[in-house]
């Protein structure tokens, strides 16, 4: 009801597009890892938008789950020497548990208080990661690991890892769309639209909000684990509030009430950042100006702008 059926076709089209992208990217002066990064942020933002666009809750703390899973991935590889097929699920599970516990503590707060608390928790992780030198490598970050192979697939080459991420990426799109089109997803939209009415339809609002928080945190964790594997490096900025802010920005730029909005936002964000940062070291300034323009002139995001009048 909320997302149209043709979205399934679009997911297929997106999958085909991204499958072909490694052939295209080097030709337009970009590189395969940029495509990998777009998909990773696409996972983060699409999952995050279950909370923001889907349930109407603003969190500035999802970097906590992104970073936690990222560091868990690095630590399990370096310190425990575990194989990748065990590392990724464990790292994602760590984010799920963290999101559940933090969510349980703060989900009863509304609006700005909630957003402030999410920043506080995210920054708490940031300071732990940057101070606990013996475990995390402190501000220098965590190194000394390289992605190897998983179930016979060698992930070391850039293009191999790209297609590995593509699998998770398409799975994420299918799962999130399936969730948002289920009765649970529709209930989340009801909560976004009017909390009081939802409560008086007999919906246990807090439980659903908590659920959305945990699910979005888990996808952030998946993205974080893949991101660290992409870079072979974990660093404190993964936890920084700005990382959460990037997810918010991607959702807003692309359109948080359209299914593909966050993904489009992630694509635009990563691509522009990559392009502009090769031109000038002061890339943050023009990039910021572009984003301000987007937010001012496309108030419902790029997709929202083109779907005006329809229901995202």
């Amino acid at each position, binding site marked *: *009801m*909320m997302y149209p059926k043709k979205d399934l076709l679009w997911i297929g089209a997106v999958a085909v597009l991204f499958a072909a992208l490694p052939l295209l990217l080097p030709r337009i002066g970009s590189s395969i890892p940029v495509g990998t990064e777009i998909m990773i942020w696409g996972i983060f933002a699409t999952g995050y938008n279950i909370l923001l666009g889907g349930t109407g809750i603003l969190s500035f703390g999802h970097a906590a789950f992104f970073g936690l899973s990222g560091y868990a991935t690095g630590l399990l590889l370096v310190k425990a020497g575990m194989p990748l097929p065990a590392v990724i699920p464990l790292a994602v599970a760590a984010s799920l548990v963290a999101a559940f516990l933090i969510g349980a503590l703060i989900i009863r707060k509304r609006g700005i208080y909630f957003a402030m608390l999410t920043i506080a928790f995210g920054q708490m992780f940031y300071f732990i990661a940057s101070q606990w030198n013996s475990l995390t490598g402190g501000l220098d970050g965590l190194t000394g690991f390289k992605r190897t192979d998983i179930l016979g697939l060698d992930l070391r080459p850039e293009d191999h890892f790209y297609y590995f991420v593509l699998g998770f990426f398409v799975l994420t799109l299918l799962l999130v769309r399936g969730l948002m089109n289920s009765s649970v997803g529709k209930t989340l939209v009801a909560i976004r639209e009017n909390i009081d009415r939802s409560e008086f339809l*007999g919906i*246990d609002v807090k439980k659903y909000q908590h659920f959305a928080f945990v699910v979005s945190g888990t996808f952030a964790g998946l993205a974080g684990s893949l991101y660290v594997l992409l870079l072979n490096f974990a660093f404190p900025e993964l936890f920084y509030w700005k990382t959460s802010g990037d997810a918010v920005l991607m959702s807003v730029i692309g359109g948080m009430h359209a299914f593909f909005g966050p993904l489009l936002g992630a694509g635009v964000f990563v691509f522009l950042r990559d392009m502009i940062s090769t031109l000038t070291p002061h890339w943050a300034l023009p990039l910021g100006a572009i984003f301000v323009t987007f937010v001012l002139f496309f108030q419902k995001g790029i997709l929202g702008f083109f779907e005006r009048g329809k229901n995202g």
Partner: protein
Amino acid sequence: MNRRLECRDLVKAFGGFKAVDGMHMTVKKDEIRAIIGPNGAGKSTMFNLLTGFTPATSGKILYRDVDITGSPAYERVKMGFSRSFQTPKIFPELTVRQNVFLAVQAYHSKPFDLNVFKFRDLDLPGKTEELLATFDFTRLADQIAGSLSHGDQRVLEICMAMALEPEVLLLDEPTSGMSENETQKTIDLLMRIYGEAPLMMVIIEHDMRIVKRISHRITVMHQGALLAEGTYEEIEGNEMVRKAYFGEAR
């Protein structure tokens, strides 16, 4: 089963001010009860306490002889409560049909209900269309709810409240802000709903003609407490009520 709604010595204090101050009331099964009283008498606060929208400071609320004073709103809804608000609370950016569908789905779902086969058998879209037709919304079904007239939004809210097939329907000034014509239609609609399947209704209402027409009994509130209770004729003849309420209202 004793389907009686009862409150005893109910108090709601905001700081030092007691908006509801020792209220008593018992409404019987299938009774239509009007709550009247001057502005600030505590009628809406009373509603919020009965429905669990705000917690009571002290006192007791019982339904079916079960103490529900501490139950959250959604649990009371699952017991059969349903309500409207003075300012309609709907899903403003969704269509009328989606609004009603969400209400129908909520009524037929358990928490985190993903049983698609059950939903298919239940035919939620069919039930949605039935309700839309009953409330004369078929023509407006694809409109964005927030773009409806104030009167239509209020009726939509009642429609969503009725989607829950309630035992207890609480309506907070259901016709305020409506035109004469809309008011008539809404009252006719409420009477038709009641006629088809009686249920307990508690209605806050200012318009004494409406009160006279639909309610079985009347509760008069004054300064957060019970001033009088009785049939329309009894209330009309009550000297205290005349002083506190009719005197001001005319």
